[in-house]
């Protein structure tokens, strides 16, 4: 490249830089102006409270992640009323659909079949019922 070409290139680069700088300044000024207005009119969000919540959350996570924290990792021994409970609820009551006695922890699967709902439940057709249906036609 000739010397004058080089000069043109550097002038162009300078000009481009200059314009870019102006644009950037303008954008920064936009943001500053917005923030100034928000602050002056009392519209800023309560950053102190928000930061406090974030801090408490970070602390909490650190404490819970600590392997020596017994609370986070403990299995249940007794509940607050001093009771214990088996893995499958043992209470027995009558099904309100068919009247049979059902164990609480197995109530839902029973009810599903009992009510004829769900994918797995199919209405059982026995020989006597299909025969009766055939007779009635």
């Amino acid at each position, binding site marked *: 490249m000739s010397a004058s070409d080089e000069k043109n290139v550097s002038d162009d680069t300078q000009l481009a830089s200059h314009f870019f700088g*102006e*644009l950037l*300044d*303008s954008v920064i*000024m*936009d943001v500053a*102006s*917005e923030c*100034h*207005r*928000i602050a*002056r*009119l*009392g*519209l800023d*969000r*309560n*950053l102190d*409270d*928000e*930061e406090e*919540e*974030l*801090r*408490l*959350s*970070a*602390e*909490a*996570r650190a*404490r*819970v*992640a600590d392997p020596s924290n017994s*609370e*986070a990792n403990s299995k*249940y021994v007794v*509940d*607050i*009323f001093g*009771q214990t*409970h088996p893995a499958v*609820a043992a*209470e027995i*009551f009558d*099904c*309100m*659909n068919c009247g049979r006695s059902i164990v*609480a*922890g*197995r*109530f*839902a*699967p029973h*009810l*599903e079949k009992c*009510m004829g*709902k*769900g*994918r*797995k439940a199919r209405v059982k057709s026995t020989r006597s019922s299909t025969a009766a249906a055939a007779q009635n036609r």
Partner: protein
Amino acid sequence: MSSIIPTPCLHLTHFKSHTTSFTNLLNRIQVTPLGRASLQTTKTIHFHCGACGHAPHRLYLCLTCDSTFCDVHAPDHDHDIMVDVDRAELFCCSCGDHVYDQDFDSAVVVLQTAAATLGGRDSLCSPVPESVRKRRRVEYRPWSPDSQARVLLGLQLETNNNNKFPLGLRGLNNLGNTCFMNSVLQALLHTPPLRNYFLSDRHNRFVCQQKKKSNGVNNCDRKRLCLACDTDALFSAVFSGDRKPYSPAKFLYSWWQHAGNLASYEQQDAHEFFISMLDGIHEKVEKDERKPHSQDYLEPGGSSRFPLDYQLDEYRERVMWHKNPLVFRISSGDCCIAHRVFSGILRSDVMCTACGFTSTTYDPCVDISLDLVPNHDIPTKASSKNLHSCNGNAETINPGLSTLLGCLDRFTRPERLGSDQKFFCQQCQVRQESLKQMSIRKLPLVSCFHIKRFEHSPIRKMSRKIDRYMQFPFSLDMSPYLSSSILRSRFGNRIFGFDGDGNGNDPDCSNESTSEFELFAVVTHSGKLDAGHYSTYLRLSNQWYKCDDAWVTKVSENIVRAAQGYMMFYVQKMLYYKASGTS
């Protein structure tokens, strides 16, 4: 968060007193379709500094003599009040600072909002949704028990030995993969307005009209289904004082009859159950409340019947949510208790990017479902807080952390709809690219936030769970997400009292106190998508408890803060009473 009007500086006051306000200036303001105000330039007028000839990024026009200056030379000028030509902001040379004036701002807003409506009318009037009509506030009238009630209360005190435990704390037996139901029930059992409704006998299962008609199908004397009655029974059982775990079998049976498609023995989604249950209560309760309002139980010696026809009598009272509240006299509200408690209104604005015309719709909602994304994906004012470091501690907030506020920011941000989703602009009469923005027109009494942790892709026939942690506050201020705030910020935060419908009113409309919420329940999900477990944390008398099916245990606040929240329930800190349907 309503704006305060700053006291004008002496120079501004002086300027306003001896000029014909800003009329000339306002005639020269131009506005872009999306609301940016600046001073007009034409082919012949280019602003540059009268002193140095440059045209930098910041130029001020003197309102007295019409000359322009850059920020370097402006302070030397004799006259005080200028305007930033690119931003239409007032500047005082003597104070060396931007100054704010209500008259100027209001006039600018009128120009900005003109583009948003057909025919350029100077208001963003949209039809106000029915249920937002303001009702007047009434004085609180205290209630005290009559002799009959006193006897009952007396009995209760004698037999109730476990006063040291909060009322209504009772485990729920898992009936076979029903933790999705138990977890939501625990949250609802302790939702203050809902709990008060059922405990004050507003839906008495023994006199419910719904159930009296029997359905003679199948030769069984099957009573009509009423999920609200089963809910009433649930409340009675859980608040009875019996602490052995309760089996909500009848409730499950009723719910399966109501929600046939969800009736199967497999793990289900707690959020789906929540919606389904509210739907169940809604259908039934509204038909019940047709009793005459002849009896006023406030009169001494009067009957203890509640005047069901009154709407929620609301009064201004500071209710500290963590104390056992008074028995509120809550009737069916707008349609039913479920909606009275949970229903809010969302506003959706679609703005044409070419002309600024805005189409607004309102939709009711009973909760807000939020996408879970890391905060650094959200371009928002809120992200500045991530750069603060705490005093003294080396702790810096992780910029990738997801937070509830971040999700809400994302929910209410203006979103550019893709070029394949152009909307038909009534003003331009062609399809244009547009911006869509959501905001909350009316907050419910109880806000339920549902975090979309389960992604179902019907195309790829694949589902996955997002385990990412999301921080959620214990105290929440919803005012930045209100329609009034969103509208205000859309038009440059000018001093102009936007109400939620875009109509101007007094800049200090007092919405603040109704937008503060307190967390009272968190439903969490642990484990995998198809082999997971739901449990609920409850906040009672400022102590947290974990309800894991039959197991109720005390936990520290830290456990709750660190938990993986799936649904969070917040209640308004202050409850107001309003008079019933004033015609």
